[in-house]
């Protein structure tokens, strides 16, 4: 009689092998409504900060570019900016423009990747196919510039390792026109779709107050009405010389995050186009002799938000402390504010909406109190898609 009633728990995770972060969401549910969420991370902790203390300053960029396959330009950039601040080094103009081009191409491909995944979650596989198809030429461009589709390894303390060949510039501009046309078509198709409006508006709302309390960054913050962007607020690389806008939306729901990311792709295209046209001539790196004792901070706007690196040196050839804060570290805990009170069918897309370094394809399981699995990953995906289908029928 006196048996303690355990609330049903919905487990999302723990392993998401497509991306480097493994996360485990435990949702407490009351019927179909989420009443609490607990996040566990670090199933695959690699100890990057500790490893960094055993590497020399010029080896660390290769380490931190492997923190995340998608943000493999932002992390090393934030790190080298910290070391350059420490050493009082100013990289040459051309290097700053090359860095800008690579980082914006990274943002374009990351946002397109996310748009595709978001479409997949709610049963819009056409969006998934389109977005990933249009992302491909961006990766090809990055490969031509740096030699790699990801993990570019192009930034170093004092400048860049590889230059953008002048004969490549017309090709970049031509590809940009093509990418812009296709993204425009995709964006219009998505934003004009009444079903998507019905499916994504007022879902997973993160209020402005919660966005401040959880200190979220990037598109997650900008879709909740916070106009923050490191590229504008603490300009680095060549951003201060170029014209572009910070995109914000006041609503804070999933739809606002879609709009912010898609419109940011156009701003990024604008930035790459200007930087490619204005690319100054000259060397791409300066020699850095030694790193003095001291401490410094470097930050860059990654596709998901502010990437923050703190470096301390004792005057030797290795950092004595290197702290890394990736944007998902503050964006993911905001699920506590955006998921509670949501319908289970909306959780997959709400969790995906902050674009955590967490991917779709792994195990999700709903466990009732007798340990019987009620919903697995496929069932949850089906729930999410059925809701879209239901809305579609109501609208037609």
């Amino acid at each position: 009689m006196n048996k303690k009633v355990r609330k049903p728990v919905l487990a999302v995770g723990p392993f998401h092998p497509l991306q480097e972060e493994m996360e485990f969401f435990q949702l407490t549910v009351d019927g179909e409504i989420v009443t609490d969420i607990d996040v566990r991370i670090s199933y695959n902790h690699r100890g990057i900060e500790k490893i960094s203390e055993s590497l020399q300053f010029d080896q660390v960029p290769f380490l931190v570019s492997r923190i995340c396959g998608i943000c493999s330009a932002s992390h090393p950039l934030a790190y080298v900016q910290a070391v350059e601040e420490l050493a009082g080094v100013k990289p040459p103009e051309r290097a700053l423009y090359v860095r800008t081009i690579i980082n914006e191409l990274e943002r374009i491909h990351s946002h397109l990747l996310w748009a595709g995944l978001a479409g997949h979650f709610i049963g819009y596989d056409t969006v998934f196919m389109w977005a990933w198809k249009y992302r491909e030429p961006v990766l090809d461009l990055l490969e031509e510039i740096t030699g790699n589709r990801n993990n570019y390894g192009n930034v170093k303390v004092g400048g860049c390792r590889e230059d953008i060949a002048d004969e490549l510039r017309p090709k970049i501009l031509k590809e940009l026109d093509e990418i812009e046309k296709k993204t425009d078509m995709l964006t219009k198709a998505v934003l004009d779709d009444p079903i998507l409006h019905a499916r994504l508006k007022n879902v997973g709302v993160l209020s402005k107050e919660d966005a401040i309390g959880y200190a979220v960054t990037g598109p997650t913050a900008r879709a909740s009405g916070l106009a923050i962007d490191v590229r504008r607020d603490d300009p680095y690389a060549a951003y201060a010389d170029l014209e572009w806008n910070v995109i914000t939306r006041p609503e804070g729901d999933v739809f606002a995050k879609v709009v912010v990311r898609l419109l940011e792709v156009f701003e990024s295209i604008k930035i790459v186009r200007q930087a490619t046209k204005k690319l100054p001539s000259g060397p791409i790196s300066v020699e850095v002799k030694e790193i003095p004792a001291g401490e410094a901070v470097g930050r860059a706007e990654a596709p998901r938000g502010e990437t923050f690196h703190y470096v301390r040196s004792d005057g030797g050839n290795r950092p004595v402390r290197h702290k890394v804060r990736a944007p998902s570290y503050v964006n993911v805990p905001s699920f506590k504010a955006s998921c509670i009170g949501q319908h289970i069918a909306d959780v997959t897309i709400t969790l995906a909406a902050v674009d955590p370094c967490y991917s779709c394809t792994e195990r999700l399981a709903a466990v009732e109190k007798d340990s019987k699995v009620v919903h697995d990953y496929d069932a949850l995906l089906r729930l999410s898609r059925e809701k879209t289908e239901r809305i579609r029928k109501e609208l037609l």
Partner: protein
Amino acid sequence: MKLQELLNRLSEIKDKLTKIEQASEKRIYLYCEAENSYAVNKFLFEDLGLRFVIETGIDSGPPFNPIDCFEIIYHYSDDESGCVVNLKVFIRDREKPAIESITPFLPAAEWIEREIHDILGIDFKNHPNLKRLILSDDWPEGVYPLRKEVKK
């Protein structure tokens, strides 16, 4: 906030700080002792409206400090002036290092305080949920991987 206004506002709490250092146009370092950390953090977040970025926990000693101690650096960003405000707090007790948690008024700090608790063994008083974040469940008690005595 403009930089000058930010510096003026910071001087309001200078009796709680041991030092205010402006490293550049965009970087400010503040120093304080552990017992004042809660009040200064609350001032930075609630009164100045700075955006919390992260905390860095360091097992520190010479040449950065005359004696061995723990440092926690609270990084804040003032997005209007683009300035990073770093608040350095020193915890002198190496046997039982402890400091007041800022999570009760700043939910964004929950994870990082749990992480520092894991890797440096610092006790965050009044933290609502100080369980393990990054160490696995079978990691031995009392071994803190980012302390100096742990081999590289």
